């Protein structure tokens, strides 16, 4: 078993059409509120200048919303944060458009949509919108995307001793490709993680100031269909959230929302899991 990686979660952001912020998501989980009755359309990426804002696809829009809220909750300036963006499929609507256009008349490919098709589009727009020149990365690991991105964010935070922004999101997969590689609706979540340096929890809203102790460990030998089964998603959220590929993030977020302590495992690869203990931050020494 490898090193124990300890970080503090100093901010959480969340966006889904009927749970449009983290406070609402926490309240729904605690039974204090109902999900919004009408699904919202995507949030406007307010931090972008008009030129980028009018070009931003859904994936970018939701990722930037969650990212902004997490930074606010953590009380950190986005300019100072390296960032890790994790997305299972990339932008399905753009891929559907590009593949459809290529099949009919490839010379009619939209240059704007092509340059938005890169997997790091959200990372690019985020750094442009915030003026952040720190490193940013974009990754995928299929049904293990959330776990793989979380590991990378934690590793960056500890390796370079810096707070790191972690954003995980997926949008819908429309068109024929969505029948084979499905994802519905939109979910975006974001965390700011930082090295644990022994300062106490202080006053904090729900989900902030929790400690994650993560280890990479040998795990289930067979790669499951999905690392998170619907059964592991809290019922209060299950009905309110679309059948989106980024449901992967929900079990960990449920821990953070509920103030519960405990242990969870997320698949990282065949035969390998990310095991995470979620605890209150305690003062060291």
């Amino acid at each position, binding site marked *: 078993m490898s090193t124990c990686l300890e970080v503090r979660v100093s901010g959480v952001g969340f966006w889904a059409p009927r749970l449009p912020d983290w406070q609402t998501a926490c309240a729904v989980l605690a039974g204090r509120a109902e999900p919004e009755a009408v699904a919202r359309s995507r949030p406007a990426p307010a931090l972008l200048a008009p030129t980028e804002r009018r070009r931003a696809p859904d994936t970018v829009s939701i990722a930037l919303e969650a990212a902004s809220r997490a930074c606010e909750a953590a009380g950190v300036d986005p300019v100072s944060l390296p960032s890790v963006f994790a997305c299972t499929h990339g932008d399905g609507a753009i891929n559907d458009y590009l593949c459809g256009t290529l099949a009919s008349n490839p010379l009619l*490919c939209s240059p704007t949509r092509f340059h938005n098709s890169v997997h790091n589009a959200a990372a690019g727009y985020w750094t442009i919108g915030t003026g952040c020149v720190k490193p940013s990365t974009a990754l995928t690991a299929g049904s293990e995307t959330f776990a793989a991105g979380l590991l990378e964010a934690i590793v960056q935070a500890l390796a370079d001793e810096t707070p790191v922004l972690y954003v995980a999101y997926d949008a819908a997969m429309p068109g024929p490709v969505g029948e084979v590689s499905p994802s519905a609706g939109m979910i975006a979540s974001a965390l700011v993680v930082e090295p644990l340096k022994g300062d106490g929890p202080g006053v904090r809203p729900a989900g902030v100031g929790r400690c994650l102790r993560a280890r990479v460990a040998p795990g289930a030998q067979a790669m499951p269909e999905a690392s998170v089964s619907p059964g592991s998603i809290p019922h209060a959220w299950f009905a309110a959230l679309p059948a989106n590929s980024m449901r992967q993030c929900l079990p960990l977020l449920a821990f953070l929302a509920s103030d519960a302590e405990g242990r969870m495992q997320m698949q990282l690869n*065949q035969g390998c899991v990310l095991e995470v203990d979620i605890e209150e931050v305690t003062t060291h020494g």
Partner: protein
Amino acid sequence: MKPLAVTAYTTTTAVGQGNAALIGALMAERSGLRPNDFTQHPLETFIGRVADVEAVRLPSHLAPWDCRNNRLALLGLESDGFIAAVEAARRRYGADRIALVIGTSTSSIGATEEAYARLTPEGHFPDDLCRPEVHTPHSLGVFLARALDLRGPCVTVSTACSSSAKVFAQAERLLRLGIADAAIVGGVDTLCGSVLFGFNSLELVSKEPCRPFDPTRNGISLGEAAGFALLEREGVADSDAWLIGHGESSDAHHMSSPHPEGLGAELALRDALARAQRAPAAVDYINLHGTGSQKNDEVEGALIARVFPVSPATSATTHAAPAHAAPAHPAPAHAAPALAASSTKGFTGHTLGAAGIVEAVICLLAMKHGFRPGTLNARSIDPDCGPHVRLHGEHAPVRVAVNESFGFGGNNCVLVFADRAAP
């Protein structure tokens, strides 16, 4: 940072399969570019197409992942003893202690494009392409984990043209923190309609073979490639090839244009040199991103001119290449050769998400063979691109080599390699 030993590496590009084909082409100044014969719809351009990818057959247990990108991945694994090196590492460390960090820009999107071109009359994918395994970008990572039977952390990095450079940085962190004992890094990208017609829509594709840093350069030539490297810790593994530094940054400027002063690129370069604990003057060879686009080469040339000192030998050898010179000029014996920089995209084409690993391998081959490649297809070097860019290759010792990769979204990564771990 603590250097990591690069204990095995290989790449397969348009100039051929494996490292010997690549260094041979670099020395002979032989390009792998040819007129576009890839797209059904005509597109006037040159491409770096790998021969015989179509003929690759996957073993039956990997059949669900069958597509051009994964075929090229398998083809790319089969040279330079790479699979044997991975097997040895697996025995040494255990399959769950080897991380797999792989880069790609478009992964297996070519299979999705094909499915759209062959939709059933009802508008669904044809049966043979109803395989979710190939219609998602992590197809490459899962395929390689299965092909190599690796059971450690497995992730696909996709930051456009810096993807398979950033994998070195990510793997280094995993090893530094003890998450893994070894890492397979690399990248695979294949030609597909999305990139050929996508870059064409941005008017970035040249109708001719790309000629980076030429005053009349007019765009890129796209290519495909696979490349892999095995990274292990100092003290455990000995090697004459070391990753000694990496630097990453963001431009924070524009999705598809570089920062006009190359500020993000400079941050990455300076961070990489700082981690490597090497002064700019210690660098012998730079493999530039050098796409052949007007803006990239101008900005990158200016950056190199700004950061790296000009020695008398630099100005003596840069612009004076005779028109019909034989390839691979010997360096003048009387002086320590000055820094040489070049773009090798005239050999391979721009292989996008595989460019980082291909050009990292070129840096390693430059050290191994004492050969600094030239900038193929360019007829002269644009004076605006600075004094270090070389037209022709030359035999000269390379102790420290730098590889630059810059991607859409303003995503920059610079790697530093050396022939020994200690400064």
